[in-house]
């Protein structure tokens, strides 16, 4: 299988603005020499302690920033900017509050230059896919968190990107809604065959969703391990999370992550803000 996404020795550095605590301007290495191939149609989850460069990696894949060294390739072509071949789903939904559900979903389609009728039709289909039929005319503030994230997913799916990039999309949701959306995401993924890169800080979520789990080390983020997840026939198991194989994988990833998390905590890693300052993640 050909690689849909390929990272070749990718590093990313940030120039940190001097602050009162850190009067000297510093360079911060967020990612160091990450190489990774994601085959077409794979569901890859990415875990790592805070400050391991998860979001940085996603930004690079999305084309929102460029690597300091190395290259990011999609379909063998270097990524030079954002594009409709990749859809991003953010943790905080990022819905346009002045647009209705339907108009949020058509947003990306407008960029594609589709006709109005086709846009509406496509948006309705995708809203149906995420189970939001009948909510077309609602505004985001009228929806619960889980529904907002469904809209965001529908918005990204609508323009049929080959790759779906998800940045801790379910982290702000309650446990029940999260599990429900995880199952729906898997259903949608199977139905669409989209390549998914899913960032999470939940080990269980990573093992549950991913065909492979990529574990990043604490800062500077390096690819520490890739764990293949083979849970057999999912439909045959009712409670997958208590299946011995699931427990085994979860423990394996936990072991890998455990030391990294402690190292990150000892170093007091903070999240880098867009303005070049650090703040608690």
């Amino acid at each position, binding site marked *: 299988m050909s690689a849909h996404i390929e990272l070749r020795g990718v590093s990313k550095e940030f120039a940190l603005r001097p602050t009162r605590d850190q009067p000297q301007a510093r360079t911060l290495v967020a990612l160091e020499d990450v190489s990774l191939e994601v085959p077409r149609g794979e569901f890859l989850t990415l875990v790592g302690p805070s400050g391991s460069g998860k979001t940085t990696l996603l930004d690079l894949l999305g084309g929102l920033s460029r690597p300091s060294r190395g290259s990011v390739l999609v379909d063998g072509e270097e990524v030079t900017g954002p594009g409709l071949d990749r859809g991003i789903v953010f943790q905080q939904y*990022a819905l346009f509050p002045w647009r209705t559900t339907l108009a949020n979903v058509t947003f990306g389609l407008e960029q594609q230059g589709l006709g109005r009728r086709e846009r509406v039709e496509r948006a309705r289909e995708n809203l149906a896919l995420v189970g939001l039929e009948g909510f077309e005319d609602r505004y985001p503030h009228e929806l619960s968190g889980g529904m907002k994230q469904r809209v965001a997913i529908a918005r990204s799916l609508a323009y049929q990107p080959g790759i779906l990039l998800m940045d801790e999309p379910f982290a702000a949701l309650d446990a029940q809604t999260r599990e429900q959306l995880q199952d729906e995401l898997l259903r949608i993924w199977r139905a669409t065959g989209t390549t998914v890169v899913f960032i999470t800080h939940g080990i269980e979520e990573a093992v549950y969703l991913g065909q492979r789990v990529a574990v990043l080390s604490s800062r500077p983020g390096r690819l520490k391990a890739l764990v293949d997840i083979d849970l057999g026939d999912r439909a045959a198991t009712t409670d997958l999370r208590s299946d011995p194989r699931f427990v085994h994988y979860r423990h394996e990833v936990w072991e890998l992550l455990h030391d990294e998390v402690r190292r990150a905590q000892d170093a007091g890693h903070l999240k880098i803000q867009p303005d070049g300052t650090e703040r608690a993640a």
Partner: protein
Amino acid sequence: MSTAILEAEAPPAVTVTPTAPARHTRGHGLTRSVGRLVRRSAAVVLFLLLWEYGTQYLLDPARKVFLPPLHEVLRAWWGLAESGQLQQHVAASLTRSAVGFSLAVVAGIALGLVVAWYDGLREFLTPLLEAFRNTAALALLPVFVLLLGIGETSKISIVAYASFFPVLLNTIAGVRTVDPLLVRAARSLGLGSLALFQKVVLPSAVPTIFTGVRMAGTSSILVLIAAEMVGAKAGLGYLIVNAQSSFQIPDMYAGILTVSVFGLLVNTVLVRLERHFSRWRVAAAAR
């Protein structure tokens, strides 16, 4: 200034099915709205009663001339309306404030968008704009009169000047405070600078801009009346001052009453408009 925003009720968050919020039965709803009307107008009614009877029974007779009871004022108002004078003054004031206000809104929004978009320009202009904004518009009235005479031009100009700054500054603020996450999301969808501005920055700034427009409406009337008091041949400000100097005290109060109704109407219209354009933000803030 933001009471109008706070008063608006946030629609209930939908959790299960897309049903419309339940409506009250008609009879019950009528009682409620009458009750609300009574509660809301009680203070105004009490004030008017105090005006009417207080002036007749509580006031020392020598002062009564300067503060006639309400019915005399209303009679004078009716007299002015019948003779057509009132309409003439209202028309003069309305034209001036409408023209000045419109000019200010157009110029304020246009310049505000440009200034907010270009960082260098904003940095360059901000200190000057701050200085102008904090200079009371009426302090500049003599300058306007000296330069533009006492005709319509100077009055329209000072109204435009006073209304300009709230619109300008709110437009800048609105554009500056667009949620960076939305910009990121839009950029990830491949929007260029122009599309980003048109589809994300502008819509998200609209509520803030309309707050500025409403503030501008209030200050346009305030400044206009004062300008008309200083030098004019028509207008509500002129009516008030002229009535005072010719000792037609009820006419003077009729003018004041008209100004207050005029101001209330303008404000109501602008608050409605603002609320209409801010609906999504109101509820988003109450989330």
